[in-house]
């Protein structure tokens, strides 16, 4: 995963709260054993509606998705993040995110930019007025702007920001603590179960 300092491109607005991961990528797509190839399944059911925002001209060039609160609720499927990325999105802007989705986004390098409710509304108005406007997400500055009209700050925890900026391999970072993990394992209580073999007296 490479680092991501800025996202620049068109924005698309899906004006709904509680967009769940079953909408983002339906379960039938989860049979794939790869991390790629999910773009065609993104919002599959909603895309059947010709008026759906992703069916508008230029939407396939979009890099930023703006949506309502509690985005990504429901299932833990990281495939939802992969589907958004496979389609071309590099950031989602919303007033709040479901916890697992936010973690998955950061893991895979999709920016979950959490703005205020009012900020989301201002960004939505600006995009409605100028659908072709350039949307810029500045990960280092933690701001999202639409054209030169509106700039809103977004929340992103320091560690998550660092991981996105550097494109870090989390496992590699954790394995630096190998000695501590091994020491922890040596003092785990004896009554804890092991999957192999049943517990002893």
């Amino acid at each position: 995963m490479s680092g991501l300092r800025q996202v620049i491109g068109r924005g698309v607005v899906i004006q709904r709260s509680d967009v769940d991961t079953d909408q983002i990528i339906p379960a039938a797509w989860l049979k794939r054993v790869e991390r790629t190839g999910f773009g065609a399944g993104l919002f599959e059911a909603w895309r059947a509606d010709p008026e759906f925002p992703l069916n508008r001209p230029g939407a396939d060039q979009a890099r930023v998705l703006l949506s309502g609160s509690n985005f990504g609720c429901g299932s833990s499927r990281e495939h939802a993040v992969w589907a958004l990325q496979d389609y071309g999105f590099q950031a989602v802007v919303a007033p709040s995110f479901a916890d697992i989705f936010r973690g998955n986004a950061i893991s895979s390098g999709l920016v979950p930019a959490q703005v205020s409710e009012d900020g989301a509304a201002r960004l939505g108005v600006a995009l409605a007025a100028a659908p072709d406007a350039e949307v810029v997400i500045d990960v280092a500055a933690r701001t999202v702007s639409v054209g030169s009209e509106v700039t809103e700050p977004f929340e992103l925890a320091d560690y998550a920001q660092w991981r996105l900026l550097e494109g870090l391999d989390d496992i590699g970072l954790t394995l630096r603590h190998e000695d501590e993990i091994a020491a922890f394992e040596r003092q785990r209580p004896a009554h804890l179960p092991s999957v192999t073999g049943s517990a002893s007296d």
Partner: protein
Amino acid sequence: MTARLFDKVWDRHVVASPDGEPPLLYIDLHLIHEVTSPQAFEGLALAGRRVRRPDLTLATMDHDVPTTGLDPVTGDGVIADPLAAEQIARLRANCAQHGITLHGLGSRQQGIVHVIGPQLGLTQPGMTVVCGDSHTSTHGAFGALAFGIGTTEVEHVLATQTLRQVKPQAMAVTVEGELPAGCTAKDLVLGIIRALGVGGGAGSVIEYRGAAIRALTMEGRMTVCNMSIEGGARAGMIAPDDTTFAYLEGRPHAPKGAAFERALDDWRSLATDDGAQFDKEIRIDASALRPAVTWGTTPAQSVSIDDVVPEPDSAATPAARQAAQRALTYMDLKPGTAIRDIAVDTIFIGSCTNGRLEDLRAAAEVIRGRKVHPGVRALVVPGSALVRAQAEGEGLDRDFTQAGFEWRSAGCSMCLGMNGDILAPGERSASTSNRNFEGRQGPGGRTHLVSPAVAAATAVAGHFAAPTDL
């Protein structure tokens, strides 16, 4: 210094707290299944990494396994869907390569991952349990800290047996009073989510407390904790007590003899200390609840079975009104319609929410000696092969089949419709599962979440009904 159940479990699993980084949490049990693990194993292979603790990792197949067409005992037969067959074959190969125990098709222990962990006695108080599945919150019923993770995190746990986690807040959901007759753990948790909202638990671990929670069986507690995620909380926990210990004693992986006694001392110390404060608290009166039926497309959109489909205008905020209107359009329902006047096409009894033995008993009791309403399709999918066998030992399978239900093999089945058990577009179900999202049980399908008893009564009536209506 007072501490909460959640703090006690959290603190004993912190491996390291590096400056400026989230703490590293040790994972006692990692459950894996065919759908969210293949990309994690691929990542391990690409990086040349091994599975650190195969002895703390357990695999099963549940999400896209067929529930019909294979031999229910041996699992022999051809899996018709080539993509599902490939995922299942991958899991077998990955487990064999890394020395991971797999309870696959044909194993008596195969089943929904959140049914088999407790059933084996692997889920114990004070543990950390993770799985690439959001309903991992189920295991919190034992006083474990259990939560769903994404596939990148699955890979992280496979490689390191740890996870980096920012410590969530602790929320108390206190349920006092006594559940009225006919009300179950499912009705209770739907009532909790209605009060909390689908995002109300975000950033929090819920501890369920109060007399109504303590009165629940372990299986009822699992139903409640299972749906914590539907209120936005990654985890739900219940302090372990004598009900918990009685459930665990004698299970294959529970400590035995003197070790069990030592474990009891430890488990009894986990409960939240008197006087401990929570970051948030909501209170529910169990005695005011009635059997619940969802009318919309989120698990928070439910009413009592005695009620009517609500007016969207009654919602609290403009966003909620808009969401309610959209939900009614999707569900093809008119405000003011009595819930009991809504006819259904399909009944699904099963899932990690309500696919355990007590659930099947509750449904069987309602349908015994009765018939499924003409034109209604009704299926029972036990949560595990063992639940299926135990139910057959009690003759429940005959109750179901004589009433006109299909008696299937274990798996997730129509809860998420990955294995071909789906609703046709426009079909309406009464389902004991956990999500009524648009298209969850098949594109265009309309899902109403209910308890097993209401599902069974609805199967007989052909429209929503409580057992006392029959």
